[in-house]
């Protein structure tokens, strides 16, 4: 009887020879993937959407606009936890690299309230626009203390076309910073 058990054990051993296959769902989590994000476009989001850092460490984060058409100007406002994060620098994003004209890029950092204001626009009336998905600005933060903090867009954010007509923003992504 024991021999039969050994034989069956061998058989089951071979039957157990299989590898793990990654799941189909939940794998694609790129916040810039318009097919996978939970919200509709046009939308504003951060990239990376989740950052792990250590207290005292610096990290860049981009403000992205997704799936926009005929973007001529933008006003973006978002809030950060001033007790945990400090703004180091803000630079214009790569979305405008291919534009025929460099945009006017203005920033305002409200340290007291932990709010950042970003403005982009093109001079003249040449109907210079950009379309698609791209980075409006890149902000470098320094983590001040340990803990989790969020980066949250304000609903006053605005995207406009060359006619200064507002483009509806249908979704906002929220950034998360983990400092451990």
């Amino acid at each position, binding site marked *: 009887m024991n021999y039969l058990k050994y034989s069956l054990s061998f058989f089951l051993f071979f039957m157990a020879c299989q*590898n793990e296959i990654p799941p189909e769902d939940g794998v694609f989590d*790129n916040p810039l*993937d318009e097919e996978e994000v939970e919200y509709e476009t046009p939308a504003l989001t951060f990239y990376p959407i989740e950052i792990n850092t250590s207290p005292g460490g610096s990290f860049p984060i981009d403000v992205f606009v997704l799936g926009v058409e005929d973007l001529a100007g933008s006003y973006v406002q978002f809030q950060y936890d001033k007790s945990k994060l400090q703004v180091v620098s803000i630079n214009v994003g790569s979305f405008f690299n291919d534009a025929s004209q460099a945009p006017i890029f203005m920033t305002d950092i409200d340290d007291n309230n932990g709010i950042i204001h970003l403005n982009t626009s093109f001079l003249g009336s040449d109907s210079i626009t950009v379309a698609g998905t791209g980075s409006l600005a890149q902000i470098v933060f320094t983590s001040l203390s340990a803990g989790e903090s969020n980066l949250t867009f304000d609903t006053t954010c605005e995207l406009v076309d060359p006619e200064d007509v507002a483009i509806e923003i249908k979704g906002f992504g929220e950034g998360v910073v983990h400092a451990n």
Partner: protein
Amino acid sequence: MVLRLTPALLIFIFNTYLFGQNTTLTDETKQLLSEGKKTTAVLDFEARGINPKEAATLTDRFSSALGKTNAVILVQRTMMKEILEEQGFQQTGCTSDECAVEVGALLGCQYMISGAIGKIGSSYTIDVKNVSVESGATENSQSATYAGPKDGLIVEIEVLAWRIMNLEPPQDLIERQKKGAQVYTGGEKPKTQMGALMRSLVMPGFGQIYSGKKGAGYTLFLLEAGILGMAAKSNSDYTSFQTEYNTQLTNYQSATVPADIANYKVLVDEARNNMTKANDQLMLFSATAGGVWLINTIHAFLTGPKNEDEASNARPLQLAITPSTNQIQLSWEFPL
């Protein structure tokens, strides 16, 4: 006064006359005679169901063992044969007590030992008799029954050599009797079905090779090796596709351009599909390898060596598959 000579004395005188040059006793023999030891000769044991040559060999072994008892003055078997041949006596067929007495008288010895080795079913029987030449009476008779490989008869007959002299066999001989035929087969265990099964369990085909079916053994071994090779190849493919999957997933997660994102998604899906295919193949080949392994062990057991002991212990009720009809058959075997 009438001198009455017993037949034995007459024969002794005749022998003395005939083999005068050999009647000079050695000092050792004289001493043995003075100790009261009797001259004894051993007739070839009768073979009943075994090879006569084997019976003769066993008789020789019996004589050797009898000599070791140091209880008798043993007539050398070669000498005995020479004397009988010169007397024109055919030892073959001399199995009765009367014949033994007659031969003993010819040889001039006091006791004759005769015996028979028979086979009934899978058991062997050995019967040994010690007959007084003078009186024709059976002084002692011993018998033994043994079941097992023939090699075991050697020990059995040695034991009987002691018992016919009413002596207890030495302890080492008793031990050898307990161990049976292994003593004479160099410790090599007889091949069994279980032995074949265990070897096939360790490595496919080894059980069949052990049973002497080398063709089937090598075929099964190569078949299993081939299938395992295919399984290993599938596993290797899976690992490659897994690496590809992880690389493309990392590329996807770090992509910021929509076209790149879409492209990497396709590559990730492709790598995942390839992983699934490789894994399916791995499972198929693994299951096949397991199946072949299992069949190989069953085959090794069913076609494994069946020795006589196992055959005699075979159960009368058996369940088996008939290859010609591919049907399961329940058979009941009983002796008529």
